[in-house]
């Protein structure tokens, strides 16, 4: 390696530009693979992008913190994106007001069951407290999940990984489990996917049926709200 090239390399690997460009390029590669191979749930674009970036960083010998200094500009937009969820929430709120009671009971049951069963199973199999706390908000869209995780003493970046895996699991096995419990109502099927598996579940529901997609979006927004309010309260009751 010539000295000039080495200097350029040192500069690039420390500047935000490289991390930012790598993030966008890897995501577009992930989208391309997802579209190219028939939009299979297992080929989730986020997962592909994450693996591509992680592999690139390891090969280039760049640590995560250095990468994140650049990628944080993308990460920052999670805040305004969370605020923007008010728009679909409002649009669907008008449309589904009539089944409000059924939605509310299903939401509270599903939200509590997702969080409690995750913590209970992890606890029964001997997971550490940090891991359990990071698992608790994993059914919620990641801007909210990471905020909740931080508040209750989990690791936000570990929670983000769990959130993405949860979405992929629901997108892959959701149809199967919904058929197993014999739920045929599109509204209920979509709502289940949205409450338990946030944006990735919603994207999956939208692929199958428009009504299911609308109820999934509503479920995602409402569960974000419920989890953000309830989990920190539950944590204070049980852990402190």
């Amino acid at each position, binding site marked *: 390696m010539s000295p000039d090239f080495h200097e350029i390399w040192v500069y690039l690997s420390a500047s935000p530009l490289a991390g930012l460009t790598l993030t966008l390029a890897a995501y577009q590669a992930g989208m391309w693979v997802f579209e190219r191979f028939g939009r299979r749930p297992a080929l989730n674009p986020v997962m592909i992008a*994450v693996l591509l970036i992680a592999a690139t960083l390891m090969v280039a010998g760049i640590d995560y913190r250095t990468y994140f200094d650049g990628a944080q500009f993308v990460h920052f937009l999670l805040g305004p994106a969370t605020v923007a969820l008010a728009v679909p929430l409002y649009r669907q709120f008008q449309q589904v007001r009539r089944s409000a009671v*059924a939605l509310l009971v299903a939401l509270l049951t599903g939200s509590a069951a997702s969080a409690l*069963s995750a913590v209970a199973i992890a606890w029964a199999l001997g997971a550490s407290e940090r891991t359990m706390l990071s698992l608790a908000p994993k059914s919620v869209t990641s801007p909210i999940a990471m905020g909740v995780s931080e508040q209750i003493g989990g690791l936000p*970046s570990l929670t983000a*990984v769990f959130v993405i895996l949860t979405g992929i699991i629901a997108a892959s096995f959701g149809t199967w489990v919904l058929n197993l419990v014999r739920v045929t109502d599109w509204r209920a099927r979509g709502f289940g996917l949205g409450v338990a598996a946030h944006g990735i579940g919603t994207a999956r529901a939208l692929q199958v049926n428009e009504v299911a997609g609308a109820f999934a979006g509503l479920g995602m927004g409402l569960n974000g709200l419920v989890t953000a309010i309830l989990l920190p309260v539950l944590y204070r009751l049980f852990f402190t």
Partner: protein
Amino acid sequence: MLGTLTLLLSCQLAGELTARLLHLPVPGPVIGMVLLFVGLLVRGGVPEPLQETAGGILRHLSLLFVPAGVGVMAHLNRLEAEALPIAVALLGSTLIGVALTAWVMSVLSRRGPDAESRDAEDAP
């Protein structure tokens, strides 16, 4: 675009300030979401530019997960050491969550006023 981005950031900022001042256990952006939601209820509709900007951001929502997802690198040791509890907890709780939410909702709405609008026959 610029105006609505300012609106979204203002809601977030107001949310952060509210959370901190009142010591609420809720992330600032979530309070910002509630503020915007209440604002839309009061106004009684979504302005066209807000619809466009929000739609644009939410369409690429999954991109925003990527930087945090790469954090998997920082947790490889933990994921390896606790692989079994993590895998079973994620798989079990996700399937329980999907099934239970959908089942409760379908049972309750069957008895409700929406029963006649159910399209049970042609579900997959």
